[in-house]
């Protein structure tokens, strides 16, 4: 496990989506002038960074068999408080720490209720989605936070080696998330809880602790995403993050993570987020009428998932079953994903 191999990074699960994405990029390079330029491509990466950062946490939640639909509201509360702090002149690092702290606290409440309150995740986060959104209204009185100072917005708008900082943060979070999920004991227990809860219990894994921690991480990363989001735009609007949870969940699921839990990967979620970013970029670049947008997006997502699974199936036939079990004993053995 200590040695990182290419096969670890791009498992069968991700290669399918990667090929679909590359195909889409190829088509767009020909069909849409302006697509294959660095400003456009890096712009897509920066645009998906906020969703992708949350998607790393969401991937862990969904692998344990849970779901977190409160991330949009967590984003809103964190963005509001971070924005107010930045406006009051707190330092950049303090603002980042505050975002992480608030996100972790709100995610921690979700985790406590799911893990120790034994309430289904969808019900807990449905309730907190509404509660946190309400808190956001109470704290803000419906007013926006505007005119954030330049030292703070620099975090969202500064270029570093040709890419704006939000994209670097996304990559950093993805690498750390990948490491935790695949190279640590905790990561393996995340798969174990979602893949076979009884087995995990018998193997001595503290299931509530794992459940609590994944919701904590989901909140924490959404708090970070909120700071990035606020710094990118320099103002916080009252309806920040409405519908955000759907984009995050879509990125994770398009990335091949099973909504039933037990399997999935960070790389997949990042690819899923990038896929969605490329699609919405393409719609404008190809000058597809906005009235067709919903239909086209739906068909592209379905097409990607179908192609992904057929590519995966044919690769599975070529590769021995053995090599997909490498990620640990926690892979589901009931054939649910095959």
């Amino acid at each position, binding site marked *: 496990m200590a040695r990182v191999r290419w096969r670890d990074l791009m498992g069968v699960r991700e290669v399918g989506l990667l090929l679909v994405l590359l195909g889409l990029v190829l088509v767009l390079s020909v069909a849409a002038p302006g697509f294959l*330029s660095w*400003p456009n491509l890096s712009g897509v990466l920066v*645009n998906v960074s906020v969703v992708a950062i949350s998607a790393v946490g969401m991937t862990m939640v969904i692998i344990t068999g849970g779901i977190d639909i409160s991330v949009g509201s967590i984003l809103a509360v964190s963005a509001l408080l971070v924005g107010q702090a930045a406006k009051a002149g707190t330092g950049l690092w303090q603002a980042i720490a505050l975002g992480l702290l608030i996100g972790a606290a709100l995610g921690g409440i979700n985790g406590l209720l799911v893990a120790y309150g034994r309430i289904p995740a969808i019900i807990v986060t449905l309730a907190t989605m509404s509660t946190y959104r309400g808190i956001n209204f109470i704290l803000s009185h419906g*007013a926006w936070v505007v005119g954030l100072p330049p030292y703070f917005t620099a975090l969202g708008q500064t270029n570093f080696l040709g890419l704006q900082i939000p994209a670097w943060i996304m990559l950093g979070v993805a690498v750390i998330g990948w490491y935790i999920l695949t190279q640590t004991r905790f990561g393996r227990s995340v798969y174990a809880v979602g893949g076979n809860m009884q087995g995990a219990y018998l193997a001595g894994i503290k299931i509530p602790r794992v459940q609590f921690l994944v919701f904590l991480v989901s909140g924490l990363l959404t708090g970070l995403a909120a700071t990035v989001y606020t710094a*990118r735009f320099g103002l916080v609007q009252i309806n920040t993050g409405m519908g955000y949870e759907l984009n995050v969940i879509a990125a994770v699921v398009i990335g091949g993570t099973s909504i039933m839990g037990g399997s999935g990967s960070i790389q997949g979620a990042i690819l899923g987020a990038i896929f969605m970013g490329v699609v*919405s*970029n393409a719609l*404008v670049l190809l*000058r597809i009428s906005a009235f067709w947008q919903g239909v086209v997006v739906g068909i592209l997502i379905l097409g990607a998932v179908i192609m992904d699974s057929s590519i995966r199936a044919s690769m599975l036939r070529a590769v021995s079953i053995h090599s997909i079990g490498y990620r640990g004993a926690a892979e589901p053995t009931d054939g649910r994903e095959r």
Partner: protein
Amino acid sequence: MKRLTVWVLILAMALATVATFGTMAMAKQITVAMLPKVLGEPYFIASQKGAELAAKELGIKFIFDGPVTADVTKQIEMIDNYITRGVDVIAVSPNDANAIAPILKKAMSKGIKVITWDADAVPSARNFFVNQVTYEGVGKALVDVLADEIGGKGEVAIVTASLTAANQNNWIKYMKEELKDYPGMKLVDIRPSEEDQQLAFQVTTDLMTAYPNLRGVFAITSVAFPGAAEAIKQAGKGGKVAVTGLSTPKSMAKYVHEGVVKNVVLWDPGDLGYLAMYVAKQLVDGKMPRPGTDGTITAGKLGKIQVKADGEVILGPPTVFTARNIDKFDF
């Protein structure tokens, strides 16, 4: 006989004087309770200031109070209290057009005049609605200011709320009408931003890539406008791609001072509150045009104001905020 005539005359004069003073006193004493959607929001604070000014001019006893969150049930509670207390006019910006209707009807049945301002209730539940601007007025102002910025020539695009947003669709309809006056301007695309500033940012960036000759963007929601301006700024196209739209002066002031945005179109909520008080006063005095007829009223510093047959009082053409005046507005 002569003495009797004199006495009768004196008595009549005395009575007339008392009656005159009486009516004058009554007219001066009217009490108006004004409710915003929510307390503390700069937009409504501006309305309150405008209304206070008019109340002073008209000698109105003015009460201003509202819910701390934009909650219609709190408004209903407060209106119920006003009915018990007995006010002459209730002026409300309802958080829900239908939910507020029963309590407003109750107020009207007790002889209290009811006006809505900023947002309407069901028309049968109020006497008049003090509305900001007409759809036509907004559409025309948006196109005119952008045409002025880009010399009436070039490709332009609209970033709207969602494709189903009624206000935006009406504005777009009149914008298209107005664009006919500028044959050099070509509307190349209309994109939704779903009231999400990140999407507005992204769509504006993508529009500039898709249409390299794009000269102007209309961002016609308060959420989309800052997003679109930020996109143009971060792309380094400030001054090359013009952007205008509807938003509050405070959220756009930064972009106006940076030169990315030249004109912000909206109405002045202070004037809206001011007008609401004049409508309240003339409603009690019986000077409003009869329902079902078009007419005009005179409202202090605002001058002649149009009243439509359906009971809508229109503030007038929108206000255009520029670098010269934008810092004067605190909402």
